[in-house]
Each structure stands twice: as C-alpha cells, then as structure tokens.
C-alpha cells in the first residue's frame, strides 16, 4: 500500500448535477480505485456516477498567490447585474 498511488474521488449524486469531490483513497490501479471508491463513498446510494483521478495529475492554483491570481476580477463590479441602476417601475430587466 505504501507504493499505491492516491486517487481523488468525485461523485455525481444524481443526473443533472456535477461530480463533486468527496475524498481520496489508495489503490494500485484505476479499476480497483473505482471499486474501492464505490464501497467507501457510495454505500447509501450517494451516487449514480463516479470519477477517480490520480491526485498527482491534478494541477492546482497556489493558495499563497490567491490574491494576485484572482485579482483581475476584483475591480470589475460591472460584471454583476446589481452594478446597474434601473429607473423605478421598469420590470423584467
């Protein structure tokens, strides 16, 4: 088990919803990762579809650089509908 890779598990709880990350597990290969994920994370019909992804394949943004990484959105309040003033009495806008 020491050499088994870590897999991240994602569950779609029902059709129409996205897969959501639920946790991780160790498994020697993708097939066993899927079967283990079924037994560990969907014992109560929590899912209709499962993804397992090798943790090492996930590319993540750096939490330390969160401020600078996301700051392009900080000064663009005009992207939200609440930025605009609408004259009294205008409906369906």
């Amino acid at each position, binding site marked *: 088990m020491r050499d088994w890779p870590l897999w991240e598990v994602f569950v779609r709880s029902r059709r129409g919803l996205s897969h959501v990350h639920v*946790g991780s597990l160790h498994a020697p290969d993708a097939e066993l990762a899927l079967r283990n994920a079924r037994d560990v994370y969907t014992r109560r019909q929590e899912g209709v579809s499962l993804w397992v992804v090798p943790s090492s394949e996930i590319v993540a943004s750096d939490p330390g650089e*969160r401020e600078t990484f996301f700051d392009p959105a900080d000064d663009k309040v005009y992207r939200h509908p609440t930025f605009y003033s609408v004259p009294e009495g205008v409906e369906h806008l």
Partner: protein
Amino acid sequence: MPDTDFAGLLAEDGRVEPRDEMPDAYRRTLIRQIAQHAHSEIIGMQPEGNWISRAPSLRRKAILMAKVQDEAGHGLYLYAAAETLGVDRADLLDQLHTGRQKYSSIFNYPTLSWADVGAIGWLVDGAAIVNQVPLCRCSYGPYARAMVRVCKEESFHQRQGFEILHTLSHGSSAQLAMAQDAVDRYWWPSLMMFGPPDDDSPNSAQSMAWGIKRFSNDDLRQRFVDMTVPQAEVLGLTLPDPEIRWNEERGHYDFGAIDFTELGEVIAGNGPCNRDRMAHRVGAHEDGAWVREAATAYEAKRVARMAGAA
C-alpha cells in the same frame, strides 16, 4: 490580506484548507487527533465483529455487518483527511501497530454478550455522536467534511443499538437481565469517552482557540447524560449511578463522580483487551500482505504489457 492569514481565518470562523499556511503545532495536533480518530474506527470494528457470526437473526447479522463496514469506511475517510496534512497513510498504520499512536480506550472493553452490541450502539455510538457533531464545524476543512459524512451514518448505529436493547429489555427476564448487565458495564466507560475533566485537560484550551474543539469535555459529557437518562427510562433499564437525579436549578441531570484512574489504566495499556486488539489488528494487516502484493504485481504486469505493445 486578512482572509488568507491563519489568525484572520480563525477570527472570522473560516475554514483552513490543506495547502494553506498553518502553524506547525496546529498541523501536528490535527494529525494526532485525526489519526487517533481513524485508528479508533478501525479498532472499533473488533468488539462488534466478534458477534457477527452469532447475531441472533439474519436481520441482525445484516445490520451488524453494515455497521462494521461503515466503521471501516469512517476510518478510511479520516485517513484520507489526515493525509491532506502531509502524512503518509502507511506511516499512520505503522504508528498504530507499534503503539506510538492511540485509539479510543472504549474499544479495550470486551463484548461478553449479545446485549453488549446493543449497549455499544446506544451508549458508545451515542457518546461518539455527541463528541463528533461539533467536529463537523472544525476549523480544518477536510476533517470537518469527513465528520459530516461520519455523523450522517452514525445515527443508524445508535438507533440499531437502542432497538437491540429495547427488544431485550421487553423480552424474557433473562434477556432483560442481559441488557441490564451490558448497560451496567458500558455506562461508566462511555462517560470516560469525553476525556478528562476540564480542570485536568491541558490541551483543551489550545484546541478551542484553534477552532478544532468547540465545547469542553465536561459540557459534552453533560449533554450526553441529559439525552441518555430519559432514553434509559424508555428502555426500562437503570443506569448504574445512584446519584443521577434531575437538578431543577441547573436544568441538567446531576451524576456521580467518575473514577478516572480506570481510564488512565486503560490508556496505559492495562485495559481488559488492549493486547488482544493490537494483536488482532497487526495479524490482520500481516495476513493481508499477500493481497496487497498481488494487486501491486497485477498492475505492474499490466503496465509492462502496455509498454510492450506500444
């Protein structure tokens, strides 16, 4: 940037996530607590597993197997949460197997009768739920999320235990006596699951300040007593403490003093089953080695075959 700074996050009751900066002591405390919690789930399979083959009906057997399987699952959720703090699962297991990390002392008591399975569900899982519900709001995100799943599943555990005891206590006089005996033995150890009293709990204040712990040991213990006493009345069973009585002024049940020297002894390794539990756990791990090796060899072969075909 107060919202990414550790102190700032705690101040606004935010959640710390795996790759955030955090003090070493916070990380170490969480690793120790989550690992100990995971180990408890894994060792906790043993006292009940002991009764799977002797459960009194197919229904009880199926339920008990589902419960023990849940405990394995809970252990796995928690190991996964611990790993997000940068430890290796295999190392955590090594530390359990060599006694460097502990598990809950309650699992060092034996399950002598079928009624003990009921008492464990009702009292031990009941106490665990009181301890665990506040952990769903723990400041460390992965631990809190794991606890949400655990708590959702635990409530069936407590109910099935209550149902076992209710059936026994409304059965023959021998069954009633068996239920009472189980409650007599499990009551005080269950109260000790909340840990030492507040004035003798050196790490509590720091854990509260870090948002890992939300309520003190004594507050949680009181909450457990308050919810359990009326349930015992419905069961028609007596809790083995003559000092239990409603205190109008406090709005809580009073209860007798707990003998914490026993807890110390069990933690020190001198409980009734400490050695058995560890020997069984290490044996199961070693006996399973060939399965792990076979799975690893199978994957290595597949990879080699693919490389050959390419």
